[in-house]
């Protein structure tokens, strides 16, 4: 049995290594995504920072307010890459080639996810460094940065589960691509630019409350702006845990169907 476990770790390592090589040799996989995220940060900070004078912001720095949007958008891109990588393997037929080896089935699907998580981690750190250079101050200190990274990873994992599930179910690039459009409502139907109190439209208020991203934004902002506060973090981590449970189950079911065709 320990032998089997051993194989699983080695297999996971092999598949992850290959996925990382693929990402590194295709800079177009991560560069556009990183640029869009930095674009969000720089343009919104540059154009909208004046509105943080409004009382609803309670004196918060707009850079700290908008930074989570940039981080979350980068995370979606990084995590979505895992699904894209699998679709690519399915379309070229390399996936079948891997299924024909004695490799652990789980490791075949985990490889691209782990590579996607690493990509996401590095992107987030890069964005944080740039925000620091722009004058970011983190109220919760260095520990707060670690919490933000943890939230981002959790969010990324949830989205990776979603993108992998879609990829394995549809087995086609167009459908998988279409699946990533969920990006827009997730990012923008939320407290993206202004706090909840400043949102005008009633429907957008409702969407904001339903959208799980809102709780992620709020958790990160609490760390950046207010320091250590229990409820925003508790809600943030709870929402992420629930999301992960749903999407990872979805991807596991899709994966088990994809690896053993009836």
């Amino acid at each position, binding site marked *: 049995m320990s032998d089997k476990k051993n*194989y699983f770790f*080695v*297999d996971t390592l*092999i598949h992850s290594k*290959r996925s990382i*090589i*693929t990402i590194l*040799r*295709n800079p177009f996989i991560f560069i556009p995504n990183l640029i869009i995220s930095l674009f969000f940060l720089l343009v919104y900070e540059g154009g909208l920072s004046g509105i943080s004078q409004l009382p609803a912001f309670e004196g918060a720095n707009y850079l700290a307010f908008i930074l989570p949007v940039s981080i979350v958008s980068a995370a979606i891109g990084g995590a979505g890459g895992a699904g894209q990588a699998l679709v690519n*393997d399915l*379309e*070229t*037929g*390399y996936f*079948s*080639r*891997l*299924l*024909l*080896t*004695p*490799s652990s089935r789980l490791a075949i699907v985990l490889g691209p996810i782990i590579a996607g998580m690493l990509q996401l981690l590095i992107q987030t750190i890069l964005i944080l460094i740039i925000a620091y250079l722009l004058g970011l101050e983190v109220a919760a200190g260095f520990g707060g940065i670690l919490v933000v990274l943890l939230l981002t990873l959790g969010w990324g994992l949830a989205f990776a589960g979603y993108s992998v599930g879609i990829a394995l179910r549809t087995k086609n690039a167009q459908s998988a691509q279409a699946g990533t459009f969920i990006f827009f409502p997730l990012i923008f139907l939320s407290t993206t630019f202004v706090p909840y109190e400043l949102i005008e439209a009633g429907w957008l208020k409702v969407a904001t409350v339903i959208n799980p991203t809102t709780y992620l934004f709020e958790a990160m902002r609490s760390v950046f702006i207010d320091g250590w506060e229990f409820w925003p973090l508790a809600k943030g981590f709870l929402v992420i845990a629930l999301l992960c449970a749903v999407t990872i189950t979805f991807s596991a079911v899709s994966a088990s169907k994809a690896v*053993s*065709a*009836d």
Partner: protein
Amino acid sequence: MDGSIKVKNLTKTYKGDVKAVQGVSFEVEEGEFFAFLGPNGAGKSTTVQILTTLVKPTEGEIFVGGINVKDNPEGVRRNIGVALQETGIDSVLTGRELIEMQARLFGFSKKEAKTRAVELLELVDLTGDADRPSGKYSGGMRRRLDLAMTLVHNPKVLFLDEPTTGLDPMNRKAIWKEIKRLNREEGTTIFLTTQYLEEADQLADRISIINQGRIVAEGSAEELKRTLGFDAIQLTFETTEEAEQASKVLYGIGENMEHSKEEVTIYTENGTQFLPELVRNLDEQHLSPKTINVKPPSLDDVFINVTNEEKERV
């Protein structure tokens, strides 16, 4: 683990009651070169996918190397090499990286994997291109790389699903030579599917012909040729009426006849010797075909014969 294949009453039904394979049975002995011949959609690929653990059978007993495919798919995978028609490679990785990774997944250490890659690249004549991304390879090179990946773990049974479809004659010959060597020198059991009669003829000890999910003929190439080996004389006429008339005139002359629109095809032994008589017969009725073609039987022709016989028997 031996190198045999035993299939008993294999059936595969897809959703919507689509019967891809209907009660196929056959046995392949260790070290035998077996060819599975059939047109597109005959059930060849489905059979290979089931034998290689990619698809589950609906019914049937399948043993590959003495291991039950249903009970122990992983055990089967360790002992077989599979080059599927639609098997791809990661075009970003180099040939060397792909072979090394394949070896690692079969349990080789890093060092062993490196050594194995060097051997295999040499074998398929890709040493010079080993460190280029495989996406830059030509179709023939890719197929050779695919074969090398298939051979990483010295499989006892090799499944090749249309390994030469779309290849130029030179690359085709190279692949033929290598699989022949594996079979003759290393005693590897080979299960080959192909649409090319010539390929099966050149390589296989025994051939099974599958059509619409059933095996319709089986035997050595010689045996099959004796029963199916007619030449096909193809006549085309200006009009459908002329063709209709011609088919009446020529009825009963050959072994078998096909007639569709302006075309009449007659199957007969020694087509060229038979030709003058045929033309004389047509001439007497003032029928002159636009074109006349005599050719050895293509797989299509063989099939028409096999399926016609099937119909007659019913």
